[in-house]
């Protein structure tokens, strides 16, 4: 696979990167692009607090992983950061700041500008996020036109560049295809292309590779790491697969019943877990996954 040559997150018609732009970029490296502090989420229907205080900070080019059982609040935390909590649910404490802006102050218009442009997401089932009766290329081009203000023709060109950048073999062909004509792995690439079309600084990947073949998952993870390295994209990776988090993330949060039971550098948390629940997750993984065999192989290889 060849690395994409163009910078993904700068559309061809974007602002020129002068000295002032570079200085701004340097400042941005230090400042977190996503900062979640003591976030609490309550279900108003049952008047029950579901997420009890989640905190983490994400700087450009970094990746944070969230692991935990079903219903532990991983996805709700992500949805709060995207401003798309389900009905009845609301942020009842703490704060989320995206590129320095507190999201509680945002108007719907400001949210629209922020989503896609600054923070974006891909979820587990790619087929359900595309319109089945519109060719996939047109759907990406639409995102580009709306989000970057490019005209039709350059938007099409940028959409093609994006399809190439996510390593789709024949971007021209895929551009003109309908969602049903593409495999799950290809659809997830299309979704990632659409998610990064407007050059977001944060991408939330919520179980984005869970349903894919392992060989395809490896390629999607390569793609995400390219986006980090080349464009400084920051990632939030939600997965029930500890191995995916171990591979991709700098730090990891372990959630259980709405609570963060452990938070730290990935290597430390997964190799020397302190909390009982993290230890259980690691043990289960080692006992029933590939680690059972491959970990022993690795220790044999080590002197």
């Amino acid at each position: 696979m060849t690395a994409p040559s163009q910078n993904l997150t700068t559309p061809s018609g974007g602002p020129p990167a002068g000295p002032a732009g570079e200085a701004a970029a340097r400042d941005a490296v230090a400042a977190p692009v996503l900062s979640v502090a003591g976030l609490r989420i309550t279900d108003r229907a049952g008047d029950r607090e579901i997420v009890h205080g989640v905190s983490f900070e994400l700087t450009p080019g970094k990746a944070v992983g969230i692991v935990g059982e079903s219903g532990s609040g991983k996805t709700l935390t992500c949805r709060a950061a995207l401003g798309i909590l389900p009905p009845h649910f609301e942020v009842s404490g703490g704060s989320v700041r995206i590129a320095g802006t507190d999201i509680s102050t945002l108007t719907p218009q400001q949210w629209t500008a922020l989503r896609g442009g600054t923070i974006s997401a891909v979820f587990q089932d790619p087929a359900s996020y595309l319109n089945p009766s519109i060719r996939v290329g047109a759907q990406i081009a639409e995102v580009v036109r709306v989000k970057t203000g490019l005209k039709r023709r350059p938007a099409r060109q940028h959409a093609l560049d994006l399809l190439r950048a996510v390593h789709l073999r024949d971007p021209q062909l895929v551009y003109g295809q309908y969602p049903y004509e593409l495999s799950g792995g290809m659809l997830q690439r299309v979704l990632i292309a659409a998610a990064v079309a407007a050059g977001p600084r944060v991408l939330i990947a919520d179980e984005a590779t869970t349903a894919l073949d392992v060989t395809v998952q490896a390629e999607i993870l390569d793609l995400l790491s390219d986006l980090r390295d080349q464009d400084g994209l920051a990632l939030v990776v939600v997965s029930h697969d500890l191995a995916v988090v171990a591979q991709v993330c700098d730090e990891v949060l372990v959630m259980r019943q709405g609570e963060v039971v452990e938070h730290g550098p990935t290597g430390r948390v997964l190799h020397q877990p302190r909390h009982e629940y993290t230890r259980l997750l690691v043990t289960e993984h080692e006992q029933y996954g590939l680690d059972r065999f491959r970990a022993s192989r690795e220790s044999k290889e080590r002197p």
Partner: protein
Amino acid sequence: MTTAHHNAAAGAAPGPAAPDRPEPQGGTAPQGGPDPRERLAGRDRPGTEGATAVSPVLDIAGLEVHYGLRRRRRKALHGITLSVARGEAVGVVGETGSGKSTLARAVLGLVRASAGSIVVAGEEVTGYREGKWRRLRRRGVVQYVFQDPLRSLDPDLAIGESLAEPLLLRGVPRAEAVGRIRPLLARVRLPEDLLGRLPGEVSGGQRQRVAVARALVTEPELVILDEPVSALDSANRVQVLEILKELRGTGVAVVLISHDLGSVAGIADRVAVLYRGELVEVGTARDVIERPRHPYTRLLVSSAPTLHTAPADRSERAALRAALDG
């Protein structure tokens, strides 16, 4: 038992009982050397001295399945030879479209084999017509568990009713049926108060265990599960796998179908790798994972991250992919 083609296959295999695995071959269709399928058949059938007196619960030989007609006819499965013994768990892994589910459907009589034979619990089922299949399925010797139990359980039927239904259909009195499903519930570690609830009212992990319980109602000899743990979180995954382990311990043959080698590695005695409709590798889980031979298996293993190892370098994976496509 049909033996003719097995003997032929075993005869062509170099030392079927030899403990050492033959050297890896370059591609899917090696020139020269013996056909890999015949080798597999040989390894699958550990010679006469290792053969048990009991016939396998599932015995597939030279199975071919085609979809479509005439010019649109496509091969879905080609030359599949695999047997599963009593109390054995076999994992069938492969990518989307590799034929995993077609294999399961052929064993259940949901798709017709165009050649080869399938023997289920000593019964040669290959030429069966629909009526005979229906009778076999009603006996419940083979059971199938789908990936998404919401789709296989009637959403409007209380879980207790869904569990009792197969027994009631066979004329078991209601009181006896209810008596028989209670211990089953314990076996899949579900509380009894679940019986009155609807499938939509319980968690995904509980639902999958209900689906397993329902498969066990008819006391099957073979249970085929399609991606049983793919959608489950760690704790539920472990619970379902533990239940399957116990099941294997009671002499039931278990076939686990998955796209994820990692989700079958924990309990499968043997792993069979399907690639583009062909069984390219069969071996113990440890052999297949630690010493994969076929390029696809190598790609599969090298793509999977673990807690301690990253996937292989992408140029290495690209080379394997190229070897497969070339």
